[in-house]
């Protein structure tokens, strides 16, 4: 068993046993659901909007080469420097080199899951740069030296008391534990960091091929400041983020807000098309855009699951997933958790090592229903299972099913199996759930009802 699967299992057991945390997460997500449903209801047709969004992303992803070329040509025409990175390592090196060239010391960052994906902060800190996360939730988890719990709500697992204690330890005096006071503490600390930062770093939500723009969605205004104050700006984005047209945002921005947080629109939706232009009074002198592949092209090559690249990272599938709700975000051990993480991680980091995530699903389909761009998530989980066992068949599982097939196809064997089951079941009680129980994984936490002496067939026959 790989270490990833054993870690997943032990963390899942621990977290699903933490009733306080489960209750806390459930309450938070119930609030989300109410708001989201209200906002979905305000659409004249949410379902048609989903279909249009899916078709638009399909068009973007299935003509990715031409859209990327258009995006890059437009960006470069306005003075933006575009870099291409096939791997996370290349992206880290490109970014570190920009920082070295600029003789930068401090970097202010707005939220970017791609930077989590390539472990950027650790790499930059190792080189002696100071990296400050400015999104409040990201700032909190950075102070705790942990990964975001959720791709949209990074600190949703923490209570106000835990955050107050953390701030008191790391930042000094904190007036109270109210979210208002705690937010103001972070705001004060961050203001001076913004003004002092040499480089601003952002992620991206969309890239517009037609007009050469990067669109960033946020509520706090931290990305706005990151893109306004420092002299140099760096943006890292996955190559799948493209949308064909500027006007497509009129559909995607409200859908992202609704699916992601139950808002009609996120507070700031900002499109950047270049560094500071002639006649403009502020903004970075230099803007570097780093396009990241990092095995996205492998997912692209799988036509069956290509629509997983439609993902706009709204987190809707996490919020409704019974597995995510109970085992929590950190249990996955991946940058992208929840259903979409379980689908794409095997493509990004290896099928055999991450196939267990596709098994950690009840296949209820809630994720597929929640997805604003109609990614066929729960079928992709099944396809991952199929692909994993086709590539590396599980010997005992296959043997067991072959034997079952033989027994179930022959009435005499079936009758015998039932009788034997009835006879031997009392003996199972002695080993149930213990190390020598062959069905331990199943029986450890479950009871098998006693097998009746009289089978259905016997009963049916006697009735006649």
């Amino acid at each position, binding site marked *: 068993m790989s270490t990833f699967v054993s870690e997943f299992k032990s963390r899942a057991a621990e977290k699903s046993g933490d009733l306080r945390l489960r209750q806390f997460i459930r309450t938070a997500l119930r609030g989300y659901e109410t708001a989201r449903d209200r906002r979905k209801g*305000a659409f004249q047709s949410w379902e048609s909007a989903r279909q249009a969004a899916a078709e638009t992303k399909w068009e973007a992803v*299935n003509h990715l080469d031409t859209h990327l070329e258009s995006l890059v040509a437009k960006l470069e025409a306005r003075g933006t420097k575009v870099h291409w*990175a096939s791997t996370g390592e290349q992206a880290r090196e490109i970014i570190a080199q920009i920082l070295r060239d600029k003789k930068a010391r401090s970097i202010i960052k707005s939220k970017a899951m791609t930077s989590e994906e390539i472990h950027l902060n650790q790499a930059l800190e190792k080189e002696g740069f100071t990296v400050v996360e400015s999104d409040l939730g990201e700032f909190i988890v950075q102070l705790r030296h942990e990964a975001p719990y959720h791709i949209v709500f990074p*600190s949703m697992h923490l209570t106000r008391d835990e955050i107050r204690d953390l701030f008191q330890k790391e930042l000094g005096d904190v007036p109270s534990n109210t979210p208002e006071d705690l937010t103001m503490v972070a705001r004060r600390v961050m203001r001076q960091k913004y003004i002092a930062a040499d480089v601003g770093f952002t992620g991206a939500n969309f890239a517009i091929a037609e007009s050469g723009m990067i669109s960033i969605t946020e509520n706090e205004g931290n990305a706005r400041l990151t893109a*306004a104050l420092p002299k140099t700006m760096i943006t890292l984005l996955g*190559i799948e983020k493209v949308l064909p047209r500027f006007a497509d945002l009129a559909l995607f921005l409200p859908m992202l807000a609704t699916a992601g*947080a139950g808002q009609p629109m996120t507070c700031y939706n900002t499109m950047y098309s270049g560094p500071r232009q002639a006649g403009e009074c502020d903004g970075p002198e230099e803007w570097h855009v780093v396009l990241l592949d990092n095995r996205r092209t492998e997912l692209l090559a799988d036509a069956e699951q290509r629509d997983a690249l439609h993902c706009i990272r709204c987190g809707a599938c996490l919020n409704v997933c019974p597995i995510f709700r109970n085992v929590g975000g950190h249990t996955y051990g991946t940058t992208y958790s929840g259903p979409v993480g379980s689908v794409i991680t095997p493509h990004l980091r290896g099928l055999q090592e991450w196939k267990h995530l596709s098994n950690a699903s009840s296949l209820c389909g809630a994720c597929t229903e929640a997805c604003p761009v109609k990614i066929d998530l729960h079928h992709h989980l099944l396809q991952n299972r199929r692909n994993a066992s086709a590539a590396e068949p599980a010997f005992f599982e296959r043997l067991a099913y072959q034997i079952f097939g033989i027994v179930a196809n022959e009435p005499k064997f079936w009758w015998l199996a039932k009788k034997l089951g009835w006879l031997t079941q009392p003996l199972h009680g002695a080993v149930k759930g213990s190390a020598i129980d062959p069905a331990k994984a199943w029986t450890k936490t479950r009871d098998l009802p006693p097998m009746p002496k009289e089978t259905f067939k016997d009963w049916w026959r006697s009735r006649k």
Partner: protein
Amino acid sequence: MSERENILGRIREALQTKAPFPGVRNETVAPVSAGSPASHAREWLPSVGASIEEQFSLFARNAADLKADFQLFASREELKTALLKLRDAEKWTRVASHGGTLTDYACKTLGLPAMLTDRGYDVQEMEKCDAGISECDALIAQTGGVAVTSRSAGGRALSVLPPHHVVLARREQLVADLPAAFELLRQKYAPDYPSMISFITGPSRTGDIERILVLGAHGPKKLTIMAF
């Protein structure tokens, strides 16, 4: 071979196989249309009334939901009174703004030292201002938000750095919905767009602590939209 060629090469190779069109499995909704599916967005987004009055009242309701303060005036004199009232209520001593018909009028009315961003400015100075006063490109009835750009609203920082952002607009700047706002921006600027276009929908906010709403996370705690 450059990484650009490597990546584009892998993309082209991957796209040799066709992917199924979305929504063909067990779907109740028919494919929307060929060409540009999002161009029909108006038919599915939240509805907006047909008349200007309905749209203004929708804008006002949406702005109130977002905890933005929206004030609609019959005349320039009413705007003047409201600005002075705001100045006195919040005890402003210094504001940041930019050159423009409405902003020039506001700065003159307020009679306070005003830091203008047009020819460059000092960030620390702006940080000390009580309010940032800017114009905008559009008010959007559907969302209760405004669209600003680095060209129309005094650069990138003016609308987010001071603790109170005051947006000045003319009635005619109201558009019905998001598709109309994008069309307006396209007609006004394409292909030479300002380097920043921002849709501001309510004052800065966060829910990162226990999912409880707090205003003024990094950007302004207050957003006032004044139109006449």
